[in-house]
């Protein structure tokens, strides 16, 4: 399956990123190469701008094809603890929802160049899970102990960005709090699903034009999704999966 892109080689260096970190800028972890392409994915379907973002080839880490989450002009990820990212930049107009969802390669302390587009994110998100050193169980998001063997030797694991649809549904009514997306007359039904990434099945929002085309087993690839724009005008971004094969961009 396409999730074969995941492999133990995705295992991130063992530096532990505090999963509860709430600051978007974080320590570096990694050099894993799960995304071959540097193409920018627009994080928000609702944003007209689709300009290429700041995943410039000049970034050294791009040499190894690393994910770069550059939350630029007006986007941020919903929870960065969910993701493995090379740079997790929350600049003037963007933030991640929870930093613990991401893994970050290098701290960005000031001087962040805003991307050319309001909501462009450099690369598709890479989710940050954990693998138990004792029995190999893979979980998401990162947690300190293994739900299978109770062991506490968990190492960070960058999850594959490609998988297959395991099951899905469509949310037809606006959820109650703490849901932060559009409600009332602005609410639009949205699909959610479980995506089989090989060693773990991850729950995710889905991004697809026509839900009637969703099929169990269809190949999916990770992307960004805007959930809401917060009081400071920042787009709050989370991960989603959208139709696509490994290797496509």
């Amino acid at each position, binding site marked *: 399956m396409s999730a074969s892109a995941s492999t133990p080689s995705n295992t991130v260096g063992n530096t532990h990123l505090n999963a509860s970190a709430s600051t978007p800028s974080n320590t570096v972890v990694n050099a894993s190469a799960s995304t071959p392409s540097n193409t920018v994915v627009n994080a928000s379907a609702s944003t007209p701008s689709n300009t290429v973002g700041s995943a410039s080839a000049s970034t050294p880490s791009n040499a190894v094809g690393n994910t770069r989450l550059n939350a630029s002009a007006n986007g941020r990820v919903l*929870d960065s603890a969910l993701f493995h990212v090379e740079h997790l930049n929350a600049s003037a107009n963007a933030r991640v929802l*929870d930093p613990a*969802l991401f893994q970050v390669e290098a701290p960005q302390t000031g001087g962040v160049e805003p991307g050319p587009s309001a909501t462009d994110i450099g690369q598709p998100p890479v989710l940050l899970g954990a693998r138990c050193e004792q029995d190999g169980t893979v979980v998401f998001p990162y947690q300190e102990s293994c739900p*299978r063997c109770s062991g506490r030797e968990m190492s960070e694991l960058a999850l594959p960005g490609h998988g297959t649809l395991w*099951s899905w*549904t469509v*949310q037809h*009514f606006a959820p109650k709090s703490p*849901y932060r997306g559009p409600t009332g007359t602005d609410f639009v039904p949205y699909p959610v699903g479980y995506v089989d990434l090989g060693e773990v099945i991850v*729950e995710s929002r889905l991004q697809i034009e026509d839900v009637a085309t969703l099929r169990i087993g269809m190949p999916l690839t990770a992307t960004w999704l805007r959930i809401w724009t917060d009081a400071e005008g920042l787009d709050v971004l989370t991960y989603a999966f959208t139709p696509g094969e490994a290797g496509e961009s």
Partner: protein
Amino acid sequence: MTRPTDVAIVGAGIHAFGRHDGLSGLDLAEVAVRAALADADLHWSDIDYAVGGSNVSGKPDTLVGRLGLTGLPFITVRNGCATGGVALMTAAQALRAGEAELALVVGFDNHQRGAFAASPAGYGLGDWYGESGMMVTTQYFAMKARRYLHDHQISERSLARVSAKAFRNGAANPYAWRRKPLEEEEILAAAPVSPPLSQYMFCSPNAGAVALVLARSSRAADLCQKPVTLASIALRSRRFGSFEVFSPWLAPGVRSSPTIDAAAAAFEIAGVSPADVQVAQLQDTDSGAEIIHLAETGLCADGEQEELLASGATEPGGRLPINTDGGCLANGEPIGASGLRQVHEVVRQLQGRAPGHQVPGGPRVGFTHVYGAPGISACTVLTVP
């Protein structure tokens, strides 16, 4: 097959399930308790041990202020969807341990309208999970049902058959909430909530109460014309590999379920086989859940449900009557009362005096199953000689 440690149900009472906006959960509970006492021809002062459960609708032990300040031990339990099962188990254990002669169990709730809202922190999850719109119980039921139907080649029409059966049974049950029969086509064409589940394939939170009076089997015959033996009750939480509500991730290739474990334990303790069951109430939070639980409890094989439902085998007159009182789909789900409603219905079926459709032929072995978040299940086997 009565054993010295067996416990029997000698009285049962219910407050009709539905919307009861003018009444509190405690009001409903009092009605159910007095009905159960009257059913056993007992007075509150005869009861020497009580267990009460409510998920959100008040402190059960305050009922002593209405029923009588007799000084009895009154245990309050709160265990999500398994609240009723835990209350029943706690009372049964006290009787078996010789700590009481006559125990009363009561479960009740009066919920607000709409789907249950849940706090991510309460489930050990980050706020992101709720904020991004994935912390919704109906999504879980829909995705679990879709995957199960896919894996076992069961049609979406089977989902509608479950609902149609529930509303037919509910229409005959004076204590049920939704009492209007619906055709399969109406159910399939109804507004989607979370496909493949439509609005008529989900139960709703509502209000209701159930009470039971328990005695040790040695005394039961003196108290009740037809006592029903609680042959077993088993409670289990989830193990690795179960697919539960509010799961940001699942383990591939492993299948476990608290229902599988609790049902197996209940049958083993009771010394009966699933094939012996003549009437059963299964957790049908949605119509997919009834299909899944038919197999997880051991009452049928995976995939067999399509034929069972199409042939009418799970109707009150069929060979495996399921949710004869209309289940959660027709009764709604006041969490603290829901598991005890199942026991109430099976007790009445085994006594031959079901409020709605009576299973013909004098059934002697019944089964109940509750299941809920975050992966707990309680099952009972109930028998009459």
